[in-house]
């Protein structure tokens, strides 16, 4: 399946932080166990996405994001109204 530009960007950021090639990262991967990110790196990741996609993420929400799928879902949910406005 073709990835959307925002998903491609997220995979690139994940690759950058984990040093795992973007093509080897799977949607079902867990940030800690599969990609080797510690809690600090995971928070940095959520923070980077928050800035890049201009989405507000509360701390309580950020610490619960533990998988690639959850990251993509967050970006999709928050980006949806914005993308609709530009359609």
């Amino acid at each position, binding site marked *: 399946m073709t990835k959307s530009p925002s998903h491609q960007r997220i995979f690139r950021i994940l690759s950058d932080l984990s040093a795992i090639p973007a093509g080897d990262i799977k949607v079902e991967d867990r940030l800690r166990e599969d990609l080797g990110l*510690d809690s*600090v790196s995971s*928070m*940095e990741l*959520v*923070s*980077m996405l*928050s*800035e890049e996609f201009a989405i*507000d*993420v*509360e*701390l*309580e929400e*950020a*610490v*619960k994001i533990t998988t690639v799928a959850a990251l993509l879902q967050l970006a999709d949910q928050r980006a949806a109204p914005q993308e609709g406005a530009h359609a």
Partner: protein
Amino acid sequence: MRDDVLVLGANGFLGLHVVDALRAEGVEPRCGRRRRSNVLGLLSRRANRVLADLDEPESLRGAMSGVNTVIHLAGHYPRHSLDPVGTLSLGVQQTRTVLDAAREAGVRRIVYVSSTATVSPSEVGASTEADRFDTPPNFGLYHRLKWAMEGVFAEAGDIEVRVALPAGCIGPGDLRVGTSAMLVALARGDDPPHPDGTVSLVDPRDAAVGIARQALRADAPSRLILSGRSVGLHPLLVEAAALLDVAPPSPPLSAETMLARARAAESAAAGKRSALSQEIVELAVYGVPVDGSLATRALGVRYRSFADSLTDFVRWATPLGFLTPQTEPTP
């Protein structure tokens, strides 16, 4: 609103509280951040973020343009004590980079946030701002690093340098669970191994008030201890256990045993921060009682109680999943 204050390390544990304290004093600070860092706290505060990376001197010069006062909380904080030469070299180099950029930008005052680790023992009661090591401490890489970074500011020339010396911070916002590590372990129902020794504590919100006022007030002390309390580590953990309603900790282990355990834990962590660090052990083993009353007399800093700080920490940490339900009130 005054906007000529730059906070380096604004997105950190103490830094975020300094941003809040500056706003309470009528200042909207520029908040320096590294290119890759967790800035969720700054985003939620709608703070003015600027790139100020200690490894990118040009970014520092840009961030300092038009700035009168820099509050520097971004000093190198090693994840472990396994590389003394590299750690000291990096810390000193980054500090020089900050000082050089400040000089080029025409900054007039720097508040360097150091640590009570640079306060030397006193022969007459608790140590004060006058007690400082003339030569590098012969123990603890963290102690030597802080001492060395403070020393760089002796070369500050025309820039006025003030040094803040906060104790170990216990309170809300400790995302990396640094100084709170043993309290978190206790709250989770673990029995944290610990050495005997003295620790000094401060709520980061109170320390932040002191740092903000030290930065802004013309007649503030040039060296300022920010500590609400000095206490034995074991009695502190016993007190915390009672407040948390968990089992009290086992008696302290010897300094040698704890340092060996910390070294092993750091080696096993392979470059990441381990749950038990030499720095935390050494801060207790070599800790001395300090007197934080000058901040109260000179700047009106009021220290809240350890019980209040711990309660607020638990209230903050529980929804984040840092603690187990043992800290919740029993139904």
